[in-house]
């Protein structure tokens, strides 16, 4: 399977703490994206990092990309209860319009 893997599978933290999720993938990419999914809902795009970028910020989100290790991390700073959701990384399948999703991390932020 080309599916990426994420760890941890589940993460429980207190409000105000930082949350870090990691993603590993297998093939060459143009870009890597992170999506959030609230329970029973569709996915929402959070951030995209291109293969020639190493770090990107958006609000409380920080994404890093290491193409030599085929890995990425998503850091959410100062977490809030509303950040409780599943987080998926997704890589583009080269020369296609398709994404390959990771296995996801379920984040629970306790108020």
């Amino acid at each position: 399977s080309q599916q990426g893997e994420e760890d941890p599978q589940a993460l429980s933290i207190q409000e105000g703490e930082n949350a870090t999720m990691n993603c590993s993938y297998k093939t060459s990419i143009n870009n890597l994206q992170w999506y959030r999914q609230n329970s029973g809902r569709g996915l929402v795009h959070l951030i995209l990092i291109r293969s020639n970028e190493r770090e990107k910020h958006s609000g409380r989100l920080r994404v890093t990309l290491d193409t030599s290790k085929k890995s990425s991390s998503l850091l959410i700073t100062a977490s809030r209860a509303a950040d409780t959701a599943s987080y998926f990384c997704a890589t583009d399948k080269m020369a296609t319009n398709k994404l390959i999703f990771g296995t996801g991390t379920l984040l629970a932020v306790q108020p």
Partner: protein
Amino acid sequence: DAMVIQNPRYQVTQFGKPVTLSCSQTLNHNVMYWYQQKSSQAPKLLFHYYDKDFNNEADTPDNFQSRRPNTSFCFLDIRSPGLGDAAMYLCATSNGAESGNYEQYFGPGTRLTVT
């Protein structure tokens, strides 16, 4: 404003009874996707359309079919639902990789129950 709309949000069907799920978009995107997502799993791509060109995934069962009558609408037909087809079905759209914009926009999903 809703951009990718899926109807219905919840669908109950009987074992073996054909069912159609619908998706519409107001984004005028070239590409429309159908994903199946089971509990605590990643979305699994079933197929996608680039304009009118249909692209099936190799492991998508023949029981799943799709139609895209125009840019705005795309349908997922399950010809003979089995208990294993109970899942969330997600529709998504994108401009296509050629545009340089790789982001996909998802609808809220249709939760399918098979009784």
